């Protein structure tokens, strides 16, 4: 791939098309959270009206809705998500800056594990199609896809922390020990899903005519797989990985709860429950940008893996 004009033009066009998407996202989320009943400062005991008014004035909640909306848009332009309503003394930027590295570490490790193991298992199963090994690994993969992580996590804790005592049951201190169980929990369904995807597409590719040609050329089977079959077979996996990676690195609520990890995941739920408008907006936007960015990377990978896809078509 050369950095020719069409490539540059393509990238510019893609980046420009991101703006309306983001504006739409901001608008919908902004009004939706405000439509939800209740407000950020509601509690069991009603606040004195003066204090309520003061609070609302401080966070500009007394202004007309449209004015608040444009004020928010202005903030976003300078990448300021504003103060959190619930976590006083914290801005949303600070909360994300604090939680994201943890979620990113666990999520990226889980994705890496999922990709490497998933692809290897999938290829292995495809090469032994319809054998006992194939059926049993795909059976396990089906289990892996179906069992929810709130079942897997406690089981892992029970086995490796409570009975075995080899690993901590929870907590986060940037050591590998504290990462193992949450990473494995997150990775299991990813491994299983990628393995199934990979097996299916590999079997399909292995039946294609150009693989027959590669064999007729006299290539060793290893080369046939690595040089000819792997790339096209990876395509479905790559397109799955874009959104899946965004979901993983922004943190899983369940897994972070169970392992008491100070990641980003719990902010999604906490922000929404507390009507913490700025926090909800912040994490949703952050997630949105990640998804867009990763999809963009996936498209670029696609054009590398398949020269037939011209940049214009992306």
């Amino acid at each position: 791939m050369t950095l020719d004009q069409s490539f540059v033009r393509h990238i510019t066009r893609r980046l420009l098309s991101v703006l309306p998407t983001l504006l739409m996202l901001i608008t919908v989320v902004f009004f939706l959270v405000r439509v939800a009943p209740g407000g950020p400062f509601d509690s069991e005991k009603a606040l004195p009206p003066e204090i309520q008014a003061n609070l609302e004035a401080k966070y500009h909640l007394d202004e007309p809705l449209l004015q608040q909306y444009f004020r928010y848009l202005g903030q976003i332009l300078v990448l300021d998500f504003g103060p959190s309503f619930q976590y006083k003394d914290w801005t949303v930027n600070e909360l994300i800056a604090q939680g994201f590295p943890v979620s990113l570490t666990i999520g990226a490790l889980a994705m890496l594990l999922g990709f490497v193991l998933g692809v290897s298992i999938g290829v292995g199963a495809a090469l032994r199609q319809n054998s006992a090994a194939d059926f049993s690994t795909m059976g396990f993969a089906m289990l892996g896809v179906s069992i929810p992580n709130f079942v897997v996590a406690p089981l892992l804790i029970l086995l490796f922390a409570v009975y075995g005592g080899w690993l901590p049951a929870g907590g986060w201190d940037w050591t590998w020990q504290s990462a193992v169980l949450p990473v494995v929990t997150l990775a299991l369904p990813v491994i299983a899903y990628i393995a199934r995807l990979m097996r299916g597409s590999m079997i399909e590719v292995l039946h294609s005519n150009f693989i027959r040609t590669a064999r007729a050329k006299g290539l060793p089977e290893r080369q046939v797989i690595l040089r000819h079959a792997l790339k096209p077979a990876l395509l479905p996996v790559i397109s799955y990985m874009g959104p899946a990676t965004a979901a993983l690195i922004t943190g899983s609520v369940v897994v972070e709860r169970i392992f008491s990890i100070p990641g980003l995941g719990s902010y999604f739920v906490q922000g929404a429950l507390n009507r913490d408008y700025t926090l909800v907006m912040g994490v949703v936007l952050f997630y949105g940008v990640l998804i867009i960015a990763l999809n963009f990377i996936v498209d670029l990978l696609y054009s590398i893996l398949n020269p037939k896809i011209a940049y214009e078509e992306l």
Partner: protein
Amino acid sequence: MSGNERPPVLKVQDLAVYYDIHDGGLLRQQVRPLKAVDGISFELERGETLGVVGESGCGKSTLARALLGLVPPRRGRVLWLGEDLVGLDEKALRRKRKELQIIFQDPLASLNPRMTVGDIIAEPLWTFYPKIARVQVEERVRGMMKMVGLLPNQINRYPHEFSGGQCQRIGIARALVLNPKLIICDEPVSALDVSIQAQIINLLKDLQRKLALSLIFIAHDLAVVKHISDRVMVMYLGRAMEVASARHLYRRPLHPYTNALVKAVPIPEPGRRRRGAEETGLRGDMPSPMNPPTGCVFHPRCPWAVKRCELEVPPLRRMAEGDWVACHRAEELDLTIVKHAPGTV
């Protein structure tokens, strides 16, 4: 078969390929053999072209793949320069790919869409001569491209940028790059326009003469086969019905099935219809190779079938003029193609 002057380069003896078909439910699974190729024997000389014709599903492509060891044969021998290819291990078989190559039916789909033409043609070189110099490879690839009628400056293009005929030229260049001695052409032109078909066939004929190649040319189009072949083998349900020189086959078929095929070739004359004796005389459809008829596999459709044909399998036997036929009644029948016959040379 056609003479004893020189030993044949390829000698195939009783080659059979069965596919296992699993059917029945999950519990009562049965494995039944589908006899795709069932006891084929022939010989091929250096520089000779053997055409193989037959309807779809008669085992032509399976025969091609079995000769190259791309599918494992159930029994039989494939003697290449005296060495049996059947039973060779994967590594040894791969080494033979230098000498035996194949050109496939679907030109575009047979080329890896993620590789440039140059890489596609060069890959066999890198595989068999890993230490070869880059310059040398490129020179050879460009030479091959020129030889098959492609422009050497298209070396960095991808297959989808070429037409079907050009893709087949790429396929031919790829097959020839290692200097093979035998090329199996598995319906190399059936996916192409008629005008392009002629170009590709003439290219193959030229290359054959230049490089002293032996060719096995598989097709379901008799006219195409006639143009390129020295001898033609007619296959039906996995067996050889007739092996005869192209000249004889089209003028005076020995086997009723060949007769039907030759007569079925359309006559390029508007308004002219076949009548009476000119009709192919063929009844019904080809039976399933899962459950082939007893005796002569062709007897249910043969207008000349007698009781003996139902009971006894006719062996492929040698007739006058060095032609071979598998028919009990070959001597009695006179199947000479009369007037306006499309097979007239």
